[in-house]
């Protein structure tokens, strides 16, 4: 039993790290643009398919496919925001949120139109699981873990040390003051969309490397992504990481008592519990 729990914890941390990547994207858009952008689901799917094309059709290795997914999903994110969501933002956060759901529906179906409903898998070498101290781990899991950690580290370094990264945090803190200081909020918004949707795309590839992809890939993980962001504190990037690890571990541990199909319910339950006890999430909103 303790070994089983240790195995679930290990799996949970791996899953949580992957989840953190799109969760950072979701929370970053929230921090800067102040609305829950549900279209993160569609961009996750777009990234997953862009990476799949790069991997399977062009024969690129998974690590490069991640780069392709980041750029394609990021550009799609900027384009979709400029054309569709940005003009609606003056109407309020909730209207924009509704539009984001509609946008997700459109984009998902564009993917479905092109690729159909079939499940697709990445081309991966089949390797045997590693075993140590009675715990099993697949090399692919470790690989994905490393990609996720590198992506997150890059985001943190960008936000902490670059002028543009600091400007992004400044806009998230206080958009009015940022504009007084000469920070171009539109540019920051575009950049945030690029990075955030790019991260969603990377998340899509990681999900695809882990299992398989179809047009609903993004939608299937989105509840866990929301849960991670809300549990950690909407708008807080370290919060998204903490939240994602919490949800990842929680979903795995739930296997001890619940049927696997209910994993995503854990996220929903976690949202309710955390919001009841700490309405601003574990780390609080707006904490960087």
């Amino acid at each position, binding site marked *: 039993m303790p070994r089983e729990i240790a195995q679930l914890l290990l799996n949970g941390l791996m899953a949580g790290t992957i989840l953190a990547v799109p969760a950072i994207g979701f929370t970053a858009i929230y921090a800067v643009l102040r609305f829950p952008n549900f279209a993160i689901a569609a961009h996750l799917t777009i990234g997953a398919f862009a990476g799949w094309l790069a991997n399977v059709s062009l024969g690129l290795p998974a690590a490069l496919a991640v780069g392709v997914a980041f750029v394609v999903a990021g550009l799609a994110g900027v384009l979709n925001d400029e054309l569709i969501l940005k003009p609606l933002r003056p109407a309020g956060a909730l209207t924009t949120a509704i539009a984001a759901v509609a946008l997700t529906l459109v984009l998902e179906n564009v993917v479905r139109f092109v690729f159909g409903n079939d499940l697709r898998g990445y081309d991966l070498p089949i390797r045997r699981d590693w075993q140590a101290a009675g715990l099993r781990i697949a090399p692919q899991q470790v690989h994905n873990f490393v990609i996720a950690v590198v992506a997150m580290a890059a985001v943190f370094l960008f936000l902490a040390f670059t*002028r543009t990264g*600091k*400007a992004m*945090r*400044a806009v*998230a*803190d*206080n958009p*009015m*003051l*940022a*504009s*007084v*200081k*000469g*920070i*171009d909020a539109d540019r920051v918004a575009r950049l945030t969309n690029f990075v955030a949707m790019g991260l969603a795309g990377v998340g899509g590839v990681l999900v695809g490397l882990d299992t398989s992809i179809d047009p609903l890939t993004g939608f299937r993980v989105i509840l866990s992504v929301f849960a991670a962001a809300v549990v950690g504190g909407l708008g807080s990037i370290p919060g998204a990481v903490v939240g994602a690890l919490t949800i990842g571990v929680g979903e795995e541990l739930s296997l001890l008592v619940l049927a696997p199909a209910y994993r995503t319910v854990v996220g929903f339950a976690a949202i309710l519990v955390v919001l009841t006890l700490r309405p601003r999430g574990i780390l609080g909103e*707006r*904490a*960087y």
Partner: protein
Amino acid sequence: MSALLAVEGVVAGYSPSDEILKGVDLAVDSGEIVSVIGPNGAGKSTLLKVVAGLLRPHRGRVRLGEAALEGKPAREVSALGVAFVPQEHNVFPSLTVRENLEMGGYVDPRAARRRIDEIFVRFPALADKRRHAARTLSGGQRQMLAMAMALMVAPVLLLLDEPSAGLAPRAAEQLFDTVVAVNGDGVAIVMVEQNALEALAIARRGYILVDGRNSKSGPAAELARDPDVRRIFLGG
């Protein structure tokens, strides 16, 4: 001496039918401190927002030297050398003190690096806290930081919106000393204040705004002695 800032007949409000300012004039010469005082709701803060480019006036003109400011966005106004320090929410709470100053000098990062060192000399309290998040500062320190951020762009004109609001008397006194010191470097300052006497004490000239209109103006020392002014603001 020609006016640095000239505000003429400005009518402004937060919606087309809303007139908080009903025709206000204001002139500021290079290098002087001008205090704008008046009862709550007189439109003092609104006036600063119009000058800073945060609010487009319905009518009237705002000129900085030869340049027309009315209708220009805040970003362009600040690029012309006008720095606005809002009354509240005037720092980035989750950024460190140093990062706040960098954002203050965002438009000119190269000059900013040099100026940060100068600022830390002028504001030693901020230097000690350079790595702390701004949300951890005391009220007085926060106002200092807000002003220091504004100075990062070497402005010709500094707009201060009630800098002493909410501060303990000692902190307020320190703050006014800093305002005088900053002015000593040649920066013209327009300061909106509730603390009428203190504000007039450090100003060269003063304006009194009542209900969106100019009520009185003149040398600060005279206004401070004016019986009407004393009755309105000092209750005696």
